[in-house]
């Protein structure tokens, strides 16, 4: 649609999301509620896609930026702190803090290659989590910061327990983020990212400075992840425990990007739907369905559908990768990531 391209899967998916939002209530699907989580993780995935997908840097600490975003948003808004900004100023602050954090992590480490960078980001994630847990005075430690005030939308007012407005807000922000990513991808910077990903040496010979390009990617990715964190915290009116932003979340973000298709914005959307959809929507529904049919044998560890979730989730990941090694909706521009 944008710039005269044919209708891309992103817009079909987002259109589907709009349709779902409209039909959910009349059809009694009850899907809008869990879909909000999918939207937040799509944002996180977009952030990681900039770093890993566009620029080719394996990043295993995205959850840290989500955490930084959630805590920045919480400290900016919660009434136990002096700032008490509204939703929108706090969200701006969150994004800025995220970008700065990304920049700070990137500056000393972006000279590292491949998997060395990956483990540095992993370590950063663990350190951030420890800081959140241990610095009780600022972060409230395991208590988490709550309550966070709900967003206020012009014409709607404060968002309450009604799920619809939240959904539309998140969807709107996601659409904005998708548009921003698309434009970035085609901008000078975006082309520099892709060039660095495909061949750093060649890119630098062509006059692209790899380190600033990577730094910019890190900051952009971190800003998007922080935004996801801020929205996440505002949705549950709480940052939750620091453990909610652990390595598993980073891994989930990575799965979203790769299952969707590296470097593909369409892929991120479909990837988050697939991953969160399987784990948080389909599996609970399946377990509930099996229980309702009485397929539960409590005397046996195999008898409870809930005990099978890891296995199903893992098999889904493996099968998806086997069937679509390039991801569900791979990027159209060139081959991504390359074999060897």
């Amino acid at each position, binding site marked *: 649609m944008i710039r005269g391209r044919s209708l891309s899967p992103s817009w079909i998916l987002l259109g589907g999301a709009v349709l779902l939002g409209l039909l959910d209530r009349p059809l009694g699907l009850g899907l809008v509620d869990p879909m909000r989580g999918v939207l937040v993780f799509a944002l996180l995935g977009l952030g990681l896609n900039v770093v890993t997908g566009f620029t080719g840097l394996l990043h295993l600490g995205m959850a840290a930026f989500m955490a930084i975003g959630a805590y920045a948003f919480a400290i900016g808004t919660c009434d136990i702190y002096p700032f008490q900004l509204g939703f929108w100023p706090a969200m701006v602050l969150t994004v800025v803090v995220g970008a700065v954090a990304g920049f700070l992590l990137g500056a000393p480490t972006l000279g590292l290659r491949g998997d060395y960078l990956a483990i540095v980001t992993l370590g950063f994630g663990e350190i951030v989590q420890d800081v959140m847990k241990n610095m009780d005075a600022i972060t409230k430690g395991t208590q988490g910061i709550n309550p966070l005030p709900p967003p206020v939308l012009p014409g709607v007012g404060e968002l309450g327990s009604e799920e619809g407005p939240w959904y539309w807000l998140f969807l709107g922000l996601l659409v904005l983020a998708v548009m921003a990513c698309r434009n970035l991808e085609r901008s000078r910077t975006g082309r520099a990212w892709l060039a660095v990903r495909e061949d750093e040496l060649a890119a630098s010979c062509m006059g692209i400075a790899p380190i600033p390009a990577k730094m910019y990617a890190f900051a952009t990715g971190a800003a998007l992840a922080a935004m996801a964190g801020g929205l996440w915290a505002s949705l549950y009116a*709480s940052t939750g425990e620091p453990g909610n932003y652990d390595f598993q979340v980073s891994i989930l973000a990575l799965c979203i990007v790769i299952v969707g298709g590296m470097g593909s914005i369409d892929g991120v959307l479909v990837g988050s739907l697939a991953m969160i959809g399987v784990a948080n929507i389909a599996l609970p529904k399946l377990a509930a369905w099996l229980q309702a049919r009485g397929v*539960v044998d409590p005397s046996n560890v195999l008898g409870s559908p809930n005990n099978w979730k890891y296995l199903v989730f893992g098999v889904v990941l493996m099968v998806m990768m086997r069937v679509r090694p390039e991801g569900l909706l791979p990027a159209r521009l060139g081959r991504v990531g390359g074999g060897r």
Partner: protein
Amino acid sequence: MKNRTLPLLASLALASVALAQTGTLKIVSSLPRTGSANAQTTSMVNGIKMAIDEVGGQIDGMKIEYEDMDDASPQRGNWDPAVEAQNANRAVRDESVIGYIGTYNSGASKISMPILNKAGLVMISPGNTYPGLTKPGMGEANEPRIYRPSGKINYFRVVPTDDLQGRVAAEWAKELGCTSVYLLDDRELYGKGIADVFEKRAKELGLRVLGREGIDPKASNYKALANKIKASGADLVYYGGTTQTNAGQIAKDLRSAGVTSKYMVPDGCFEEAFILAAGAENLEGRTFITFGGLPANQLQGRGAKFREAYIARYRVEPEAYALYGYEAGRVLLDAVKRAKAKTREGVLEAVRSTRDFEGALGTWSFDENGDTTSRIMSGQSVEGGKFKFVKVLGQ
């Protein structure tokens, strides 16, 4: 597939017709079923099922349905705020749900309490012990107000809170003749909270606190920490944590490092699995466990009957968690029975007015905050590879 699902669907259709005639009331529980808490929550679910079977699965001709929801997700391996919120929302949307049993983790209740509160759905927790959820002045300044947006109380719990248990634990430590203590916690809401209370009370009682450490509950061992504790020469090691946050491993490493001090843990470790994980010989005669209630084999009346029935059904001694699950289920069903209108409001009102309830844990009521008035705490030790009731605490 086809020939299997068809009869299934047919019987389902029949069943739903039958239900429509008499009406169905649904109870859900939301507990972490995927991941490391599975062992504890399995006991709880067993207890809840016993409570439902005891009333024959129906009350006043209305069928009682039960759904065991999981508030953990496989990618987290632990309770997941998104899933807990989803469970709460799903329960709210399903009009036949009249009671929500959960959660196991106090952190999860922080998420779902406001959701259920707005909907006026009664919530009974068999596991939350964080005081701030119900008691003003015990947690953050704005707690528990923030969990009750409607201003009414819909959250109840059948377990005594950490502020009581941590306190009696410190008093018991003093009684046992300890003069110095080394405190550990698992840096989680429950473990850290109870260790904080213990520390405060211990200092008041004049026990010397030689150290305080937050541990990594996923570490493979704590031998280095045990060396440090040994050098500190403390009489007692108190660990605010649970079996799943490695209380057993700590016991082992203390012993293998040659620490001879006593070892005290809260009710998060009051389960067979703790002894199995730690190895009986590492606990023998030196381990002390506090518990909010009486152990099953000390119970009279209702509790003793529960124990017999539980053993007959599951062939194991009921754990503390099973008792809590059973008690939560029973108090809810009792309220349903008493409620004139079998609606959410009716049931909520009936739960709120629970007084002198003849439960498995004794006779108790819900107080104005929604807490159980049961204040009985017991102390256990480990002897011959089994928990041994030592005494009633805090009397």
